[in-house]
Structure formats: C-alpha cells, structure tokens
C-alpha cells in the first residue's frame, strides 16, 4: 500500500478506524484534538458511533458503557484530560474490560502548556486510577509505529481484558510523517460471553466493579494479577539499536528515544561504542532485557522528557549495579540531539559511578546551566 504523509493524530485515528473501532468518545484538548476532529467526520461516515462528550469524565464513562457490550471502543486525550479520566479507567480495569486510550502528553503539571512532554509516565505506567490494577502501555517513537500500535492495542486489550494506553506526546501527535496504513479490518461479529447485549434467549449478565466482600475482591485482584503475569511473560516489547558490541547504552522511549537515536548515530560516527535500548511496552517494563544488557555495559544514560520517572524503573531494573547518568528536558522543552550527544560524551569521559543518584547530578548540571 502507498505511503501517505499524515499528521500523527490523524494517522492514529485512521489506524483505529481500520482496526475496527466501533465507538469513539472524546473531548477537545491540545495537542490531541485532531484525533477527535478526524473521528467526528470519519466515524459517522462509516455508520459508527462518535460522541463529543461534555467532559473527559463523561467520555471515559461512555467508553465504559460501550466496552460493556464487547465492542472495540476508545478515547483519546492529553494529560489534564487523562487525569480527569482516571476514575473511569479504574472502574474499567476493575470490571476487567478492554479499552484503548491514546494519551498525547503535554507539559505539566496543572494546565501546563501544549508542548510535548513525558510527565504522565508515572500516572499511566504505575497506575493512575485508584486501586490495584495494571494497564498495558505502548510507546511509539514515530508516526508509523503509532499507526501500527493501534491494532495491536485493541488486540492486547481484548486478549487480556485490559486497559491499553498508547502513550504519545505532542511531538508525535502534531508531526507529519510518511506512513503506511493497514488494510481495513472487518468489524467484529462475535462477542465475548461476558458482553452485555440484552438477555435474549440466555441468562442475564451484569458487569460491575463493586465487591463489598473483601475476600471476593482479593480473589478478583489475584485473578487480574495472574492475567498480568501472562502479559509480562508474553508481551514485553523493546527495540535495540547498535547494542551488539555496545559498552554504553542509552535507554529512552517515545520522542526521547527517537532524539536519542540521532545522538547515538553521531556518537557511533565518533567511534563511541554506544547503543540504544528503546522500551516499547512501558508496562510491562522490559526489566529483564535492561538487566541483561546492563551486565555487559560500562555505563548507561537514561534520556527522558520528564524528571526521571522512567529513570527509577531503569535503575531498579539494573539493580543499581551499573553507573548511570540522566539527561532530560522537562515542562514541555524538547531536548536537542546535541544535548543528548554531549551527555553521551560526558558519560564516556566519566567518572563512572554507582554512588549518589543520577537525578541529583543532572539537577546540579541544570542549575549550573541556567
């Protein structure tokens, strides 16, 4: 199929359409809005459901209702709107329903700004909503990956009855890139045996997340956790670049991963044996892959557009045994490849240490810089 030049948000929307999404509910917020706008014309054209909700709160609960029928459903938003959805996401998780959510992250906290950032990592990867649950989180680093991850997100959500988040940022949402869209999938015609569709010729069904008996809730939570163990066993995804002979590695995801790749290429041209490990599933996190890689390394550099939210997970994955440095721009500032390149050079220059915390050293460097 021909490659088309498409804006990230619109490409993701069309990819969801082609993955057979039956209903989309959303609310405008930059830098995600084009996704909603695209759906507002595309979904009705195909006879599928679209509602611009009165809030993200309503949008996620429309998703909740539609998800109860066993259809493919989704919403999208950006950081502040995603915060507002978290109650509903927790209910959806607690009801063990599939849902796909696209978060096009922006600078924060608070209203922040509309520039790209990765500050929702902890919220999305480590929970977000209340209670004990896990979500699957996919982090694309370019428009093509974002497109490819939409069908994957629906498949994973359904396979594991899980909330699946495609975690992008304003850069990926707003940039135009050539991409190849998948073929249009047929709509689902078979629905799971838990779907609420009207009790015609069968026993009634109900879906709820309330469990007043703590013992029963514990059983539910353990069932969910066992399912999560399957996700961890089967679905961890990451990409490695120049890692075969690497003595140093950058760990970065999404846009930060893409920027880091440019820096790594330049460093390689300078003769530095550095590679890139780019997590694709942030949850489940490629802990073991990072640990195994780290054992062969002299030093690591974590690059993020947040103040080291993933850094903590990387350090835990390496069991704090590998000298690690940190490089980040935050609040909506996007690092240049040169800044990452400098950090790679400084890492190589040393001193390499496992003492102290990489975030503290980075914070000091940031203070000196201003």
């Amino acid at each position: 199929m021909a490659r088309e030049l498409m804006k990230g948000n619109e490409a993701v929307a069309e990819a969801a359409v082609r993955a057979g999404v039956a209903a989309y509910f959303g609310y405008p917020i930059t830098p995600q809005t084009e996704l909603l706008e695209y759906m507002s014309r595309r979904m009705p054209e195909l006879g599928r459901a679209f509602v611009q909700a009165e809030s993200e709160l309503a949008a996620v609960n429309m998703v909740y209702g539609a998800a109860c029928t066993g259809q493919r459903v989704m919403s999208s938003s950006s950081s502040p709107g995603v915060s507002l959805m978290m109650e509903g996401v927790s209910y959806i998780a607690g009801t063990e329903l599939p849902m796909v959510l696209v978060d096009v992250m922006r600078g924060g906290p608070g209203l922040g700004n509309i520039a790209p950032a990765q500050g929702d990592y902890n919220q999305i990867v480590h929970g977000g909503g209340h209670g004990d649950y896990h979500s699957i989180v996919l982090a694309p680093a370019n428009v093509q990956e974002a497109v490819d991850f939409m069908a994957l997100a629906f498949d994973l959500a359904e396979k594991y009855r899980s909330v699946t988040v495609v975690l992008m940022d304003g850069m990926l949402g707003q940039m135009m890139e050539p991409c190849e869209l998948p073929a249009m999938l047929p709509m689902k015609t078979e629905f799971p045996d838990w779907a609420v569709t009207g009790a015609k010729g069968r026993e009634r069904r109900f879906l709820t997340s309330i469990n007043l008996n703590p013992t029963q809730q514990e059983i539910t939570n353990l069932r969910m956790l066992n399912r999560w163990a399957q996700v961890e066993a089967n679905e961890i995804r990451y990409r490695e670049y120049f890692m075969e002979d690497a003595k140093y590695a950058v760990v970065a995801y999404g846009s930060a991963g893409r920027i880091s790749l440019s820096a790594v290429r330049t460093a390689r041209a300078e003769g530095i044996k550095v590679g890139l490990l780019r997590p694709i599933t942030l949850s489940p996190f490629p802990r073991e892959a990072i640990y195994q890689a780290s054992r062969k390394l002299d030093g690591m550099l974590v690059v993020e557009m947040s103040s080291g939210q993933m850094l903590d997970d990387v350090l835990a994955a390496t069991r704090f045994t590998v000298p690690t440095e940190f490089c980040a721009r935050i609040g909506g500032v996007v690092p240049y490849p040169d800044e990452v390149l400098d950090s790679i050079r400084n890492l190589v220059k040393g001193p390499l240490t496992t003492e102290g915390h990489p975030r503290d050293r980075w914070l000091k460097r940031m203070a000196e810089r201003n």
Partner: protein
Amino acid sequence: MDMIDNDTETLVYSRPNSLTDVSTHYCPGCTHGIAHRLIAEVIDEMNIREKMIGVASVGCSVFAYNYFNFDFVQAPHGRAPAMATGVKRVLPEKVVMTYQGDGDMASIGMAEIVHAATRGENITVFFINNTNYGMTGGQMAPTTLPGQKTTSSQNGRDVETQGYPIRAAELLSQLDGSSYVVRRSLNDPKNIRLAKKAIRMAFEVQLRGLGFSMIEFLSICPTNWGMSASASMTWLENNMIPYYPLGDYKVHPAVAEIKI
C-alpha cells in the same frame, strides 16, 4: 389451609418476570422497592425484558442489577447517563435505562444528565428523589428542602450557606433535547398508578426513537429521615409535593400523540 380450593384459586399478584427471585437489601418502607416493581411490571407488559440494558448508579440502588432480571451494568457515581450513552450508541436497538438517586444525578452527575438530555440521548432515566444521600447515611442532597435536617445540615438546610434545592424535572424540561420529563410520587395508590403509566410512556418514547425521557419519583427514606414509613409518606405529602409539584414538565408534541 384446607379451606383453599386450589382449582378455583386465581393468582392476582405475583413477582414480575423482570424481577429476580431474591429479597432486596432495601430498608423496610423504602420506596426503591415500589419503583423497582413498577418498572419491572411495565417491562413485562411491554415484553421488552430481553431488549433491556440497565445502568445502575452509586447509591442505595447500586445493587439494582441483583434485583432486575435483565442485563445490567453499574456506573461510577453520577456517570450513569454517560455510560448509558455509550451502551445506546453501539446498541441502538436495545432499551437502555438508568436508575439514579438524587445525589447521584443532581449533584455529582449533573453535567452528565444535562448533556445526555441536551443530546436527546434515546435513553430513559429513573430518578429517585428522597431528599438525601441514603447510602452514606443521610447527608444533605441537592434536593434536601430548606430547613430540612440531615446529618450534614444538622440545624436544617440553611439556604444562605448551603444553597437551594434543585428541581430536576423543571430543569431538564428546559432543554430542547428532552422529550418526556415528568414528576410522579410513590406515596399512594393513585400516584403509584400514575407513576406506572409514566414509566410505560417513557419506554414508548424510547422505543419510538423519540429521545430523552426522565421520570422523577418523589420517594421516602424512613431510615435516614428517622420516621416510620407512614409518617414518612405524610411528610412527603406535606413537604415534598408542595416544593416539587407533580406533573408533566416536558411532553414533546410527538410524544403527546402516543396513546397508551
């Protein structure tokens, strides 16, 4: 027992098929039971049980799905109209109802109900106005009357600091998207009959695709009001009906043509 002649005995009162065969957790005298039964009777009479999808809310009726014998989902506090929207938009041929208390619908869920009505969402909303938050132990609700004592308005609702009651039927009737919005009371046989007729009408509206319907039921909460059931009924008549007049607040011309 041998006085009863089984051959000539006629059953005049039985459990509707649309109710499950369990006893409810509702307090003695609570009108949730009456509302449940009326809705179930109408669903049986209209033969739509297999098309029904209910949305329970957060409040005393959170377990409504245990009592209604058809498919059900259970919404977060206040979000039932949004959840019902999601269900109805993907299954437009089904009959979708929400069942909500006054804290749920008129406080935390005010945006969802107003916008569901505004969109003319083709769903039916049953709204139980018992002037307080029953499930959490009788706190002030948006419907609590001026001067009414609750556990969070212990000297009586002071409108200066705690605001005025919300008349939900009047409010929703003002929206162009709503088609059938009425207030009924569950206090005596006549009003209960009228309430049942309104339920029938609301489902007819939905089946004909005429859009948003809502019935407010004036209800009692003997436990939290600290009164007997019969004293509660008298209180409802003397205090609630004057503040919340019964009647039809919105009947779209297309709805007015329906004969039932």
